């Protein structure tokens, strides 16, 4: 099986609309990642695709066949539950091999596949334990193992790595990518980890309040966000935003905000020409904000500096507006001292102040 198409699916719990007219096609063999703020409807969407919940309206197609009427066990999907849902009475090995047993795979085959899976997940020594004797991360890996051992048409993974340490998560990422390449199946993946989303996906779909905001390949999501929501959501720390006007001065087109003025590049200026005057939102990512005293630098006070290991995240107070800048570690300037802040004009985004849709994104170099 292959293409998964969601056609205007909608799910409401009582009066509470949780997924709102979602149209999304996940093509065959694609690795699609669903991201969005907590409670935006990601898990619900997966449950609708798997058939565990019934849509209020809309239809799900697998390879152009409507499957709305099929129960989950007829849909040929594998799923990792956000809450794990391990069988408490069964050992880890039995949990992992459960689906195979249901499909009447011969016992020796099951054993062998369980061992292989457990090895990939680094839980081989735990095979005889019961779930309640496992740590959080170990449980999560069992839940993951239960899905990836199967040969399903589509894999639905709901935050399968959230409780793992960075290293293990890196390993698992590689493992999942390998699996995806090997199986050549459709994956729908939910995560809160931007690195995961960026590194693993063919495309990322950003949801907010059950509404699809943008669905595009990772670089595009990052570099050409469709609106302020996506721009703010993707990227950690998030993009800096300033509200202001576009003004002309000295024949150059400027963005003028409360605390800053930024000249527009010709491309941006070109886009800006066609706009009515009025408010716009300027966005710029922290890594495009440098601290220097060069020309065009704005003066601000260091508000807080957070070391992130390789980098330091410096928040500067530009007379009431805060701007974050990511600079390489170490950063030794003390709090409240004055620094110069440089917003790279080539890296600015412009958004409509009214509805937040993107007007201009920097050209990718």
């Amino acid at each position, binding site marked *: 099986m292959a293409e998964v198409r969601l056609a205007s699916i909608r799910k409401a719990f009582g009066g509470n609309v949780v997924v709102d007219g979602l149209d999304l096609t996940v093509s065959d063999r694609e690795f699609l990642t669903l991201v969005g703020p907590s409670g935006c409807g990601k898990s619900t969407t997966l449950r609708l695709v798997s058939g565990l919940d019934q849509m209020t309206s809309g239809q799900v197609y697998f390879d152009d066949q409507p499957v709305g009427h099929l129960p989950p066990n007829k849909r040929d999907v594998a799923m990792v539950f956000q809450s794990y849902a391990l069988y408490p009475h069964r050992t880890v090995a039995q949990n992992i091999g459960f689906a195979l047993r249901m499909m009447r795979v011969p016992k020796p085959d099951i054993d062998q596949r369980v061992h292989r899976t457990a090895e990939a997940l680094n839980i081989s020594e735990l095979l005889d334990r019961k779930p309640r004797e496992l740590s*959080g991360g170990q449980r999560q890996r069992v839940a993951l193992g239960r899905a990836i051992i199967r040969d399903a048409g589509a894999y639905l993974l709901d935050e399968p790595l959230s409780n793992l340490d960075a290293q293990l998560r890196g390993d698992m990422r590689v493992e999942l990518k390998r699996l995806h390449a090997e199986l050549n199946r459709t994956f729908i993946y939910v995560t809160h980890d931007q690195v995961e989303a960026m590194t693993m996906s063919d495309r990322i779909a950003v949801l907010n309040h059950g509404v699809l905001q943008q669905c595009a390949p990772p670089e595009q999501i990052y570099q050409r966000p469709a609106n302020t929501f996506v721009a703010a959501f993707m990227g950690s720390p998030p993009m800096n935003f300033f509200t202001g006007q576009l003004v002309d001065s000295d024949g150059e087109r400027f963005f003028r905000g409360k605390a800053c003025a930024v000249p527009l590049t010709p491309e941006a200026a070109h886009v800006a020409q066609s706009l009515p005057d009025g408010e716009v939102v300027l966005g710029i990512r922290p890594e495009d904000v440098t601290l220097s005293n060069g020309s065009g630098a704005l003066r601000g006070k260091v508000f807080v500096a957070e070391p992130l290991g390789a980098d330091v995240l410096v928040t500067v107070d530009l007379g009431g507006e805060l701007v974050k800048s990511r600079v390489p570690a170490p950063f030794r300037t003390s709090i409240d001292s004055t620094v110069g802040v440089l917003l790279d004009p080539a890296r600015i985004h412009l958004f409509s102040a009214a509805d937040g849709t993107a007007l201009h994104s920097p050209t990718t170099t």
Partner: protein
Amino acid sequence: MTGHSPPLRYRIRWKKIFVTVAAIAFAAYLFLPFYWILAMSFMREVDAIAVPPNWIPPNPTLDNYASFTQPDQVEVLVGGRAIKETPYALGNSMVVATSTALLNLVLAVPAAYAFSRLRFTGSRFLLVGYLVTRMVPSVAIIIPFYLMMRALGLLDTYWALILSYLTFSLPVTIWVLKDFFRTVPRELEDAARIDRCGWLRTIWSVFLPVAAPGLVAAAVFSFMTAWNEFMFALFMTSTEAAKTMPVVAANFATDINTQFTLMAAAGVVAVVPPLVLALFFQRLIVRGMAAGSVKG
């Protein structure tokens, strides 16, 4: 797209159909026998033994019920005394059954908690010991029990009944509760202890509500055991002070004459109070009680 996949809204919900059909079948199975009694209780006796049977009372009458409220006006009917006793008996049954159920919970909850959460030597022995006391048929113990109650001066009081029903139901209640307590996630208790609950508070505020289906099952069990027990009630009581409904109901069926319609009415009267109670309490049996509480 092929034509034979039905559109969403006309999808056949086999499960729903199956459940509905099964529910109707079970309702019939449970209710029809009772319906016969119910219908009879509104008939005159001639109509009750007619061939072919009258499924609906042809001359509906409330006489059978009226006799409970106006026992003195019952002239020609049998069981005049039993009729008089019925309201008392209902009250006694209610008191005895309710107290049995409550006492059961009070005594069984701590014991069952110990079995489900603490590991201690002799636990299996004790558990089996409880059940063994229940395995001796009541015919063997009814006479000595009678002698004991007599010695204690408890004959013809609620206590004689409550105590004997306790011996019947307590072992079972402990077993039932022990099982349900095991299904309550331990993390919940942990959370409660962190939230500064002492042992009792933990049980009361967190443990028991989550184990509610089990509590309801246990309470209903002990209530019903007490409600319909006959032999002990007969032996331990003799007057309106403690006679329960089954004893009085049996009085409608003497060896010389049985007035079926009146007896049917008594049966209906005996069945209604627990059913009404059940209607209230069944809400506590909630599916997936602990859903969403723990991850793992």
